[in-house]
């Protein structure tokens, strides 16, 4: 289970320095920042811009372009439910509604106790075993109501 560090400019600069020499360092830096802080904090944008000799607007534009990069850290566990066509065909819509009801949040939200963030994902590449889900980095397929309930319970634990 990920434990994220609080914002620390020095730590951020360290991370940026580790990747800035790469060709096309933008995404590797943003991924590394998010892995550490759970999100790409506003405060990191000028630091990245400075390191890559780009404008803050350009980095802001990049961060906000990609669905992956968060504005604030997620809950302790992240439950992603696949909402794409293959999972729709196999009953994914009903399961998504069920997960929302069980957790008391809508897609994209975090429970009040900050335990679980529920997110849609557009394809996990497990379409042979739809409906599919991912809890943190673990994958689950052939979901039905019972399996989903167990998954939600595990996420809440």
């Amino acid at each position, binding site marked *: 289970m990920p434990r994220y560090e609080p914002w620390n400019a020095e730590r951020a600069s360290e991370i940026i320095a580790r990747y800035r020499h790469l060709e096309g360092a933008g995404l590797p830096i943003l991924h590394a920042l998010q892995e550490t802080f759970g999100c790409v904090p506003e405060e990191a944008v000028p630091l990245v811009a400075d390191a890559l000799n780009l404008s803050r607007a350009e980095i802001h534009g990049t961060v906000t*372009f990609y669905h992956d990069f968060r504005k604030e850290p997620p809950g302790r566990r992240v439950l992603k439910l696949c909402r794409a066509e*293959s999972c729709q*065909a196999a009953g994914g819509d009903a399961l998504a509604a069920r997960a929302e009801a069980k957790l008391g949040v809508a897609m994209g939200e975090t429970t009040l106790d900050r335990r679980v963030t529920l997110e849609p994902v557009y394809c996990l590449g*497990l379409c042979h075993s739809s409906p599919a889900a991912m809890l943190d980095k673990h994958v689950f397929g*052939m979901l039905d109501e019972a399996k989903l309930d167990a998954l939600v319970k595990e996420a809440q634990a």
Partner: protein
Amino acid sequence: MSARIFISRDSGALCVGAEEVATAFRKAAEKRGLDVEIVRTGSRGMYWLEPLVEVAMQRGRVGYGPVKLSDVEALLDEGEKHRLCLGLVEDIPWLKSQTRLTFKNCGIIDPRSLEDYRAHGGYKGLEKALAVGPEATVEEVIISGLRGRGGAGFPTGIKWRTVAQTPPQQKYIVCNADEGDSGTFADRMIMEGDPFVLIEGMTIAGIAVGATYGYIYIRSEYPDAIEAMEIAIREARKGGMLGRGVAGSKFDFDMEVRAGAGAYVCGEETSLLESLEGKRGEVRAKPPLPAHIGLFGKPTVINNVLSLATVPIIMSDGGGFYRDFGMGKSRGTMPIQLAGNIKHGGLYETAFGITLGALVDDIGGGTRSGRPVRAVQVGGPLGAYFPRALFDTPFDYEAFTAADGLIGHGGIVVFDDTVDMAKQARFAMEFCAIESCGKCTPCRIGSARGVELVDKIVAGEDPVANLAVLEDLCNTMKFGSLCALGGFTPYPVMSALTHFPEDFGADRKRLHAAE
């Protein structure tokens, strides 16, 4: 000698409990004092049988599946008498009837072992490429008739030749592993099950066009594939197959993995290049082609995973051998992915020409829900919905184009008769609106207007006039968008309207009046 048991580590197997089953086998064997080696492979692609456990016997590998935790003890007790015994895996008709070229080693070898890859014919293609030289290598790929498996179907060899003919300078090989289409998982399977074949394909491409560095851009939704590729790249480097003087030759080639960040449009090649450069994944206008001005402004070969992973067998067995499979201008084999509400979901590699109906009904076994098949979407979120009436369409680039569809990356998503096609058409527009990179107006604005129009039509709000507007909008998107996202979104929308008008709250007569 210890007994060998093979259990997949492919995420399609892990998602139904393969890790737990492998652990249980290890523990049960220890408890019984059995000398067992558990090899973690990729998947054979018969996902309804996962977790599939294969045991090496004198006559071949005997399979058991789908194995639950509670089956492990009984399996060890009963062996081939167990009810889950499938006999020789190679003899299972679903597998036996395929023509596995790109996927010949997937599910068989240990994807983390360079040695195992070599033992199964690995690096024979590179050996040939080094023997015949860059020019003849490009020619061989042209002869094979291989076309881009990502969806566009552009001849791979022609792309290579264009890059090879640019003056010597820094050039790149980029592998597009941003497999975002729902209903597809073939790239993921290769990366998790046979990563060295992709490394070999990229290395051959590098030598053929004079590129010394490669990037594999893998979507972040595939953490297992990212890990598998990174492990394999390290192993290849250790074994002298990447880096300076590849395989003892005069050619240098190395590569690394880059993770995407959840943008569907980055599967479009120019958007992917922007993303690799660290920018917003906005589509570039073409020309210039990436072959001339690609990554960091340098000549770049950008190919899909399957295209590159097919190169080694083309080199080792010959372009002519590969070309002899298929039909018309679609040469070779296509790894077709059966998905959605389907009984036998998985990967079926076969020569082009098989009909859609054979794939869905005979091979896929119809729906998992047991209800009648009503529609299938072929080629991902940008592919057309086909009714049963078109099930005689052969799987072939041109035949699908003629039927107002596309084969795309080869995914088939099956829907039963509970599907609401108006909802699917709306989703296509909505997905385009969410994922549009925003660069061109037809895609950015058109998709948002498209959602509203479908809503109006379904609500019965002046349907005849709004249908005419929707059709007009689809035409604008199709011909006015910069890339396939805006350009192909009309396929699912128009096919749903054409083949399933009853779902739009309009009877056929009214729809025809609109035309």
